[in-house]
């Protein structure tokens, strides 16, 4: 079932929670709504579900306006961050709730209901725990019960609100893989809300990045990561170095260093956005910045270093895989030449803090591939 949102607006008093949201989700897609808290992502999910009502705009399920369809008739599966399991019911009764409450002919026979519940428990890898109560399960198990319960009514759309937010890091990772597999098996159109960019990038077909009640960017994982539409998106999708530059014709000047070239003829201030992982150690005759290593941290597979740019003194962060051959250069007090492998340049000196300040304009992007 595809979903279309047209010009959705939502206000809480004077506060604009959502303004002019347009979105189309294809049938069977797995979509992440990603954004910082207060960006409106949960409100949007709840409006799609029918748990909240928009002040303007329309929601279409498969081309049909669902404004008049109440929550209980929308056939959506909704999974809450804190599970919302019925504590006084066994796991099996929780899962079969949506079937047991059906009336008349729509209600399957008792044995069918039981069989269906057990099938779902097998699907979420909880066979044999049907007679437990929710209190006797771990957090990850509870969330899988909640998912089985939502799937029991054969929803047209599955909506998950920060489904792994209450779980610890390891369980969260395992459940992500598992949800991805489950989505491949069932093919239900799925939207999930998260503030964890890693989760969104790892799980989703497409990512909707939200900020201040608006959609900042919609795109595939590669698109949003490699071509962020704004500094906000750039910042939000991972750690970022922001380096002030002067723009001279077709190159950038940082202190006394000149770095790479791009099309066009520019003057004025600007800011280079570059991810710590997109910095590499280069040979002294390469184009780049001269810097000195201040300190080095080894955090498992990634080595992180803080280096100071010689000409301006600014600190930038560098990340490398621990087996990378450049890691040998990352020793305190070592001088090196930094090469910017991939970066974006915006016209303002810095990201504006005020909400109404104009977004900095993208000047250009560079992406160097090693031969």
């Amino acid at each position, binding site marked *: 079932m595809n979903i279309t949102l047209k010009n959705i607006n939502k206000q809480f008093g004077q506060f604009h929670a959502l303004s002019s949201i347009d979105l189309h989700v294809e049938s069977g897609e797995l979509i992440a709504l990603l954004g910082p808290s207060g960006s409106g992502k949960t409100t949007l999910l709840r409006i799609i*579900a029918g*748990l909240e009502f928009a002040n303007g705009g329309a929601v279409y399920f498969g081309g049909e306006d669902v404004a008049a369809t*109440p*929550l*209980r*008739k*929308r*056939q*959506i*599966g*909704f999974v*809450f961050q*804190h599970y*919302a399991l*019925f*504590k*006084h*019911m066994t796991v099996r009764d929780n899962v079969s*709730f*949506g079937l047991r*409450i*059906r009336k008349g002919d729509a209600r399957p026979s008792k044995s069918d209901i039981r069989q269906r519940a057990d099938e779902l428990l097998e699907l*979420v*890898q*909880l*066979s*044999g*725990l049907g007679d*437990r*109560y*929710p*209190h*006797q*399960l*771990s957090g*990850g*198990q509870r969330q*899988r019960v*909640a998912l089985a*319960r*939502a799937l*029991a*009514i054969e929803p047209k759309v599955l909506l998950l609100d920060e489904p792994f937010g209450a779980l610890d890091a390891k*369980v969260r990772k*395992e*459940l992500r893989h*598992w949800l991805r597999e489950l989505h491949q098996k069932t093919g239900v159109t799925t939207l999930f809300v998260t503030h964890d960019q890693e989760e969104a990038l790892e799980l989703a077909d497409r990512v909707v990045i939200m900020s201040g009640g608006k959609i900042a960017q919609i795109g595939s994982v590669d698109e949003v990561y490699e071509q962020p539409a704004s500094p906000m998106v750039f910042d939000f999708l991972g750690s970022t170095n922001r380096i002030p530059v002067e723009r001279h014709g077709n190159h950038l000047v940082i202190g006394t260093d000149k770095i790479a070239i791009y099309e066009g003829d520019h003057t004025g201030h600007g800011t280079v956005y570059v991810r710590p992982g997109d910095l590499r150690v280069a040979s002294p005759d390469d184009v780049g910045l001269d810097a000195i290593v201040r300190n080095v941290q080894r955090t498992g597979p990634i080595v992180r270093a803080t280096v100071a740019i010689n000409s301006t003194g600014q600190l930038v962060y560098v990340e490398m895989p621990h087996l990378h051959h450049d890691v040998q250069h990352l020793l305190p007090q070592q001088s090196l030449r930094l090469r910017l492998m991939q970066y974006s340049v915006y016209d303002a000196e810095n990201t504006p803090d005020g909400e109404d300040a104009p977004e900095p304009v993208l000047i250009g992007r560079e992406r160097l591939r090693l031969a």
Partner: protein
Amino acid sequence: MRLKPKSALPGFHLALGYTLIYLSLIVLIPLAGVFLKTAELGWQEIIDILRSERVLSALSLSFGTALIAAALNAFFGTLVAWVFVRYDFPGKRLFDAMIDLPFALPTAVAGIALTALYAGNGWVGQWLEPLGIKIAFTPVGIIIALLFIGLPFVVRTVEPVMRDLEKELEEAAASLGASRWQTIRLVLLPSLLPSLLTGFALAFARGVGEYGSVIFIAGNLPYVSEIAPLLIVIRLEEFDYAGATTVAAAMLVLAFVMLLVINGLQAWSNRHKVRHQALAQPIQAGGAL
């Protein structure tokens, strides 16, 4: 035998000793006195007293009206708590404070006020009497007084539990296709049942023992509207101490049995709660998630 596992926090023996002495002085010894005094009579005399029609009707009146009033309070008290928890309206805080008034008010004041209202010439009574409905000086009047006295017990025990009920439970039920009524019946009420039973038990216990407010509105006609506590007082005034304590002992046993039953119901409605054993051995199946 060890009474408790070794704990880093001291104070168990002191606390337990204090509790036992306190309970003995305040509760156990006086109650034992009731049975001792009753025991001055032989079995035959005790049975004769208990089988007399006046005692039987007083006991059944006391327990019957208390049960009916507690049941009505359980329903309406839950409704009141629901309105306080879920909705905002002008004067809410004032109404909220008024709920507690029956706790604080001398019960005789309540009795006199209710009698004035519901008597044949009272504000309410004058409209009901032409319809053939008599409230004051009948068992119905007793129930009204007990409703007044018992309401805060239900409201105040149910309210905090209701406040803690996640709204998401209702949302989850609705998203699964449940109607409002199904959500209330299958999701909300079972979660509230333990606290509802506690409120019911408190209101009932209070109703059985209530004296001050009831004697004004009841009219106190033997066999019709004479409650057991009043009968005890009457026996005392006749210097029939053993007779009084016999009725008292009967009330004590009956009340104890009923509270025991309610406690059992509560344990049953709480059966899904974690037991410590279940906590001690986490269940691992289908991976370590």
